[in-house]
């Protein structure tokens, strides 16, 4: 029990003292997962719209594949990305292994199916004739897309939060492709595992608390956006 108290005290200390290393790690976590989520949302929502709104042969198979992708173990993604990016792999010449960029790539692969799957579900949940109604009001293709997204904004925001949550908290892929290099590719999750392995439980705890605070604040922001503008 006093481990938790120790951890809270240490967390408070680290935050208040603006410990440079901890700040750097936190900022990197936010940056890497933030960019990954942004990219996943871009791909996920646009592809999700195309898949949900058009009909093509094999549509059901594609949607099952996406839903399966939602449950993809991050560590498996990490392994595959590592094999592709390491020196003797097909993309070794890019020199991307053990960089934050590699972490972003792995996290995009993890988050995109989540965002895509939930976006498809969000759109399929709208009334089937809604799109026709919007087009009949004279909307351009983009206006229609925008209105549909707005109509499904609740489940879409949930999709974004799910995508972000999935990658900010993941450790398997990040450690494999990032290498947990100090000051370079070390993020909150990988640092926590490392400190735990060293036996520094108080530091590990502090980092966990900081991670929780970070995730909570971001989700709070998202939820505020999601729930605003609901008329009586």
């Amino acid at each position: 029990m006093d481990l938790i108290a120790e951890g809270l005290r240490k967390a408070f200390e680290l935050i208040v003292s603006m410990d440079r290393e901890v700040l750097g790690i936190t900022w990197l976590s936010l940056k890497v997962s933030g960019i990954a989520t942004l990219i996943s949302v871009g791909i996920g929502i646009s592809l999700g719209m195309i898949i949900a709104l058009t009909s093509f042969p094999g549509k059901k198979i594609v949607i099952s594949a996406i839903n399966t992708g939602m449950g993809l173990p991050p560590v498996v993604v990490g392994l595959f990305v590592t094999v592709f990016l390491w020196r003797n792999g097909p993309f070794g010449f890019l020199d991307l292994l053990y960089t934050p960029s590699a972490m972003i790539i792995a996290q995009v692969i993890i988050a995109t199916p989540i965002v895509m799957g939930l976006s498809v579900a969000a759109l399929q949940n709208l009334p089937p004739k809604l799109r026709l109604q919007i087009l009949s009001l004279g909307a351009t293709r983009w206006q229609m897309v925008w209105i549909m997204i707005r109509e499904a904004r609740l489940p879409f925001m949930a999709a974004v939060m799910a995508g972000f949550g999935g990658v900010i908290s993941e450790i398997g892929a990040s450690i494999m492709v990032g290498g947990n290099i100090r000051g370079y590719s070390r993020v909150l999750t990988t640092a926590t595992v490392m400190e735990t392995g060293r036996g520094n439980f108080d530091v590990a705890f502090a980092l966990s608390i900081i991670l929780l605070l970070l995730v909570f604040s971001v989700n709070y922001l998202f939820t505020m956006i999601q729930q605003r503008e609901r008329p009586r």
Partner: protein
Amino acid sequence: MRTVMLFRKSPDFALVLFLILISGALSVTPAQQKKSIILATTTSTEDSGLLDVLIPVFERSSGYIVKTISVGSGQALKMGEKGEADVLLSHSPDAERRLVERGFAINRRVVMHNDFVIVGPSADPAGIRNSGSAAEAFSSIARQKALFYSRSDSSGTHALEMKLWQSAGVNPEGEPWYRQTGLGMGQTLNVTAEKKGYTLSDRGTYLSLKRTLGLDTLFEGDPQLLNIYHVMEVNPARWPGVNHTGAKAFADFMVSKEAQKIIRTFGVEKFGSALFFPDAGRKDMERF
């Protein structure tokens, strides 16, 4: 009626997306990728904190960026074998020698050593405090069926531990008093302290946690408990893609006077005694 409506993926949208992707990826990678070295080493080496002191010194003077990947001993050497690292810093002499024999590593040079200690509860139920050798201590533990925690993670520590059991003529596998954590040194020490058992630890990690552990050093000093660190460069003849110039620069640095001095004084202030003993160039260490 799900007929395909007039919705095509606009080319400008794809372009914007592509730009986001590229800029995202590029914004987080520094420009000087070519001047970087991948150093594969073990978690216990990293955990000691020595590299946090040595590497910045090297980076400042050489201009290289060192990417330290710390994994288990087995994985570190494997990375060298696959050409995924440029330089290796490890402490598994047998495995290292095999790697050199097979032509994957060159220029194996001794850097430093630290030692292992056998720690346990101060009450010492197995009575190993006055053992004549490490192997004897281990056989006492087996005979008394005292709780022993093994890392069991193919680390250098684990490799030494198995060697000692062999010398003691004991096979602990399957015995109820023999517990396998599969964890790093720090965590294993914590578990051992919690359960009041025995374990084999490198002095460095033990010292850094000593204050909060409540375990005592019950046996030390046996030559078998020496943990010798070597630096090796991955053979460019086998893997032309490695940054050999950088690797050699780093290896040369590790055996340089400057680095050796840092090694000698590391930890004195914090723990009262040095954690490592510099050995570069010492002929008598070459037998390892």
